[in-house]
């Protein structure tokens, strides 16, 4: 990690300074375990989360540790998983529901956008639905279109939901704990290709990463690269390659999409004059379109080049061309070169 990487201690609320190396999915499990232990209103459920421990094994061992009353399997129905989470949350619990793949949020979509997102508003603040929906998303695992999509924009487009996506084990734990403690419904996307690939130091004690705060992963002066989730390792690799050719790129990991850290982005672009937005979701109506709009509207005077974007293509996610579909280092570098020579 680079010098500006957020130090674990910086956001610690507990007192234990120890950290342990782990991967992203282990960090998710640890967050769930700690929250289950901390607050008995927290329950976990979804398809296969109990005995099996989830298809990716994120909840492995939690049922035997906390019992089937706290960690349980449901019938195969995303509508009832999300709908039940809404009802439980309204009645004072803190449900954490797992949707097996983000691609399968479809059958639960109406419950997410019509119920979870709107309860607080439509009841004049009398009711709320503090729930978390965890779901693996994104490509790079040879899953074809039904196991690789990045549907975050459907949810960022719906007022009332908070949307987050970590890219490091540290953030995975801290953001998930913050999500569970949030009084709003939070959609927590887990970039599945980083489950085991992303490793890092994670504090063994309690801490949160505040929702809505991005982080500077690498400081730079010539260009700001902005991404989130599964693309982050490639974004950092691209920044290293740029550094080797004398260009200092600043790297921002948004971590939260709603709310998103507008000020962190604007301050950075004000310094570098160039913004390149990277995500793997299809380009049309991509959440990064909102970031691009904001940068051109609020940092126009600082811009030395148009805002650049690298996104997925506007095609369903293809099986055989899995790697070509994803942005990747080269595509980021080519777009960066365009901005730098503008």
């Amino acid at each position: 990690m680079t010098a500006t990487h957020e130090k674990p201690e910086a956001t610690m609320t507990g007192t234990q300074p120890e950290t342990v190396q782990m991967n992203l999915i282990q960090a998710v499990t640890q967050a769930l375990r700690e929250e289950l232990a901390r607050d008995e209103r927290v329950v976990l459920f979804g398809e296969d989360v109990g005995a099996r421990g989830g298809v990716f094994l994120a909840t492995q061992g939690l049922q035997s540790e906390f019992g089937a009353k706290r960690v349980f399997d449901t019938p195969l129905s995303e509508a009832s998983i999300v709908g039940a989470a809404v009802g439980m949350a309204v009645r004072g619990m803190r449900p954490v529901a797992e949707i097996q793949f983000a691609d399968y949020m479809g059958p639960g979509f109406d419950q997410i956008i019509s119920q979870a997102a709107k309860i607080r508003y439509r009841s004049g603040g009398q009711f709320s639905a503090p729930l978390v929906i965890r779901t693996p998303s994104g490509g790079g695992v040879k899953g074809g279109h039904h196991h690789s999509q990045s549907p975050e924009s459907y949810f960022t487009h719906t007022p009332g939901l908070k949307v987050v996506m970590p890219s490091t084990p540290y953030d995975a734990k801290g953001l998930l704990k913050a999500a569970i403690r949030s009084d709003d419904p939070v959609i927590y996307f887990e970039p599945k290709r980083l489950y085991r690939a992303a490793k890092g130091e994670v504090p063994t004690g309690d801490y949160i990463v505040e929702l809505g705060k991005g982080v500077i992963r690498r400081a730079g002066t010539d260009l700001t690269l902005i991404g989130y989730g599964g693309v982050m390792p490639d974004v950092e690799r691209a920044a290293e390659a740029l550094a080797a050719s004398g260009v200092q790129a600043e790297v921002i990991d948004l971590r939260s999409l709603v709310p998103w850290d507008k000020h962190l982005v604007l301050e950075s672009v004000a310094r570098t004059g160039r913004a390149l937005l990277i995500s793997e979701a299809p380009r049309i109506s991509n959440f990064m379109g909102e970031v691009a709009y904001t940068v051109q509207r609020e940092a126009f005077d600082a811009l030395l080049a148009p805002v650049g974007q690298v996104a997925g293509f506007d095609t369903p996610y293809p099986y055989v061309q899995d790697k070509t579909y994803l942005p990747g280092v080269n595509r980021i570098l080519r777009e960066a070169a365009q901005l730098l020579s503008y």
Partner: protein
Amino acid sequence: MIQPFTTEPIRRIGDDGTPIGDATPQHSPDALRALWRDMLRAREFDKKLVTLLRQGRTTFYAQASGMEATQVGIARGMRAKHDWIWPYYRDQGIGLALGIPIRDLVSQCLGSNNDLNKGRQMPHHFGDARFNFMSISSSIANQVAPAAGTAMAQKYLGTDEITICTFGDGATSEGDWHAGMNMAAVNGAPCLFICENNQWAISVPVHAQTASENIHIKARAYGMPGYYVDGNDVIAVQEVVQHVADRVRRGEGPALIECLTYRVGSHSNADADAEKFYRTRDEVEAWTSRDPIRRFEAYLDHLGQGIEADERAQLIQDTHAEIEAAVREADASGFPDWRIMFDDVYSDTPTHLRDQFELVRAEQEA
């Protein structure tokens, strides 16, 4: 007479191969051989594809071993290339028995240039218009309402086709399942819904999936008959499917059949060791001892039409050779390049996709 809502599954062959009752249909020796052949080919297909998976030649495979009688019985109970089918992802046995060539199934699993679906879908998600075999969706139960629609079209257009829609027991919990059943029923659509109840939805057993006593009684709520069949008895499955399909074809509205069977292997390669997490070895062994192929072979023995060891060995060898040839053919056809990403997204190629196509072309040529 085949009755709906029986308390026990309808059976024609006992566990030891003896015929049950006197209603056993009169199959010609050739027709019986064909059922056996289809089941064994499906079993061997599973074995070979699991090998290809282990070799890294394909990345996903969902076995149907143990479910051959259900799948072959369904295929042989419908009219191939005439009736339509909206299958689910574990239906390779139906595809094979309908006559989809092994080369096409293998090509799809390898995602080669001769894959009819152009390498776009995940392996094991077939689709073959020549057989009215709809392209498979991974999303559980979202084929059910479309199947109702296909059947509504068949009625509207005045065809004598029907639509078969298959799914697992887990699928019956999804909202789409209920919506599709209801839609077909109120429209009197010629749709035959078939649950391949293999008793597990990944790690969730059927009794934790539904509090209903079984699946077929759910039909009552939608105003259609529900039939309960021993899914490890190919004669019973074929006979019930044929009988109910005729009824559906006559315009008497949709129906539900539940085939009680068992998935012997793992759910998919993603949970290679099912026993470790959620099933008991005893349960698996109890069902393995009810193997549909062995039961049928015992039945053929009983009829004096037994299979000789070398006939069996020959069929296995031929099936393996056919699969190996299909793999060679797939390799020889090559693998789709980046261009396949941009075709078939729409019926034409809009300008934004042409721009994205050019971007990748420039990358590839650089």
